[in-house]
């Protein structure tokens, strides 16, 4: 028995692969769900279906997906150029800091000024945090994986330092910042829902990024630089500069994510504002094939699952970790199925007289 490369890939394969992945995940999670004393079928329904059946559920999914859209595309842009930015987490946090700073300093700005300023500040924060590793990479040849990775916890410490020190809540004395000026509240995208304009901004960013990556000369150069720096250089692409720019853009986008989360959801800075969105962004980007549309799909899938998981745990009274388990399994299953579909199982007929020596 062996795998053989398919000559051509039938249309139905991709969807079927995903379906298989889902089924496998369901089968695998049945046991823990039972262990937790719940009915698997009821759980499955709530994980995947429930959030999508009510309009409100849908809105919640979009809301949950919003930060992942930002970090996902941010990571995708950097990875495309062969710059391994694992630092979206820190850049997201610095973005949140930037926005909080303007939001708590210029509290009485009107929305028309406040919102653009807020996003700008967020972007600035993200770029600021991305500059250091990018600079070290370009001018000292220092590996960006190490620096971006290590700067994530540092970014969190910066947040905590601000919250424990200068930005401590002036009314409650608790370690969260004061509320941003009301001008900085992102209005709801759909009245009555919690989806805010941050989602629209995310989509806009993704569309722009998608077009640039897929439809412009710069996009082709980025791809070349990422896939074969040597060849890119030979063809006149300044790989170093290109990666530097992509690194900063990536940081800026992640920063926008922080801004959107502060202005759209929390309206203040808290140490828990990120919940690992930056790391999840790496998954979103890679599983999404570093492509705009892929990022959107994966982000929405993860959003759907986390909304569903929460619903499961409170309705069926099962531990929240079950949701994490479910999404991790689904993630790996989908990835596996997708790789498998390029192959075809073939039962080798032992034609040759095997066994020698």
């Amino acid at each position, binding site marked *: 028995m062996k795998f053989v490369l398919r000559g051509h890939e039938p249309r139905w394969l991709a969807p079927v692969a995903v379906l298989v992945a889902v089924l496998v995940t369901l089968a695998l999670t049945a046991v*823990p769900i039972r262990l937790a004393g719940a009915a698997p079928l009821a759980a499955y329904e709530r994980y995947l279906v429930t959030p999508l059946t009510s309009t409100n559920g849908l809105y919640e999914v979009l809301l949950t997906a919003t930060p992942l859209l930002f970090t996902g595309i941010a990571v995708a842009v950097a990875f495309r150029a062969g710059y391994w930015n694992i630092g979206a987490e820190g850049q997201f946090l610095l973005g949140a800091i930037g926005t909080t700073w303007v939001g708590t300093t210029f509290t009485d700005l009107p929305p028309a000024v406040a919102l653009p300023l807020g996003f700008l500040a967020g972007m600035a924060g993200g770029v600021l945090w991305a500059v250091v590793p990018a600079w070290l990479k370009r001018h000292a040849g220092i590996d960006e994986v190490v620096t971006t990775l290590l700067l994530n916890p540092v970014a969190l*410490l910066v947040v*905590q330092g601000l919250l424990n020190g200068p930005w401590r809540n002036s009314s409650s004395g608790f370690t969260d910042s004061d509320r941003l000026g009301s001008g900085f509240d992102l209005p709801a995208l759909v009245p009555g829902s919690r989806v805010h304009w941050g989602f629209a901004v995310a989509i806009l960013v993704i569309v722009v990024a998608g077009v640039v990556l897929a439809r412009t000369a710069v996009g082709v150069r980025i791809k070349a630089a990422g896939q074969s720096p040597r060849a890119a250089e030979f063809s006149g692409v300044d790989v170093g500069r290109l990666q530097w720019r992509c690194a900063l853009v990536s940081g800026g986008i992640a920063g926008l994510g922080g801004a959107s989360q502060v202005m759209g959801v929390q309206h203040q800075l808290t140490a828990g504002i990120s919940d690992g969105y930056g790391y999840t962004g790496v998954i979103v980007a*890679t599983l999404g094939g570093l492509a705009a549309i892929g990022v959107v799909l994966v982000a929405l899938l993860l959003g759907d699952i986390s909304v569903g998981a929460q619903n499961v745990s409170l309705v069926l009274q099962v*531990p929240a*970790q079950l949701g994490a388990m479910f999404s*991790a399994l689904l993630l790996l299953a989908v990835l596996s199925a997708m*790789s498998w579909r390029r192959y075809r199982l073939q039962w080798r007929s032992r034609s040759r007289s095997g066994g020698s020596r």
Partner: protein
Amino acid sequence: MSINLLALIGAMLTIATPLVWAGIGELITERSGVLNLSIEGTMYLGAFIGFLAAARSGSPWIGLLAAVVGGVLAGALMGFFVVTLGLNQHVSGLGLTLLLIAICEFTFRLLYAGDRPTLDDKFRVLFRGNEVLGQHWLTYVGFLVLAPAAWWVLRSTGLGMRLHAVGESFEAADVAGISVTATRYVALMVGSALMAIGGAFLTLAVLGSFTLDIVSGRGWVCIALVIFARWRVWPAVLGALIFAGTDALQLQLAITSAFDGVPGELMLALPYLAVIAALAIGGRTVRYPGSYLKAYRRA
């Protein structure tokens, strides 16, 4: 301000121990060209399974054994994804980390429902009372046996050469009759076992108890250390010592009146900044293993 140097060294060695075990584990897997981002989850698994087995059996040795088994399994699973299926190493690693942590916390919840269990018996410190030598045997083994052994194996054994070949060029290894698949599986399983031991050290030796988030990012630090060390054993150990030393130092400085004004967060950030600084000082461009992040499948 008073710095107790001996205590500083002692603390440094203790803090560095899990980094040395897990770091060398990661180093071995990366030598075979696999970036194993499941390290954080694998350490967590080691910490939890180790604790669980020790709690049930009453013996930390059983716990350690269980941790090793768990690590090997985690490594095999990672192998299935990135070697057998040839999946993207970033996603596989991160996904596995999420999965393992979720499984551990889920089980912990089911078994202990929110109370704080502790082990009746954990590994004791040798030379108790001596600030420097008063370490756990895992610390001694880590520095005096594991590190030299890893260095020797990678440098002057056939296994080391095979790892090197597979990590640098699949084709070369394959043509030389070296099984890329087998080599990578071995590297992953051995490496992950070491990571699990690094995690188990926290529960079985340091604490004698398990709490959520017990690894809290030490795995990521190891990833950084391995690249910092350019996939060589001694620099990796050095990196671990730099990180741990800075950490130990900040712990002492933080409670001296001299540093009253300094925000604690700055102190806590020092270890990370120290590694970056070290890299910046000693840092020329790193050359990744030739088959880094790549999957191999014969036509």
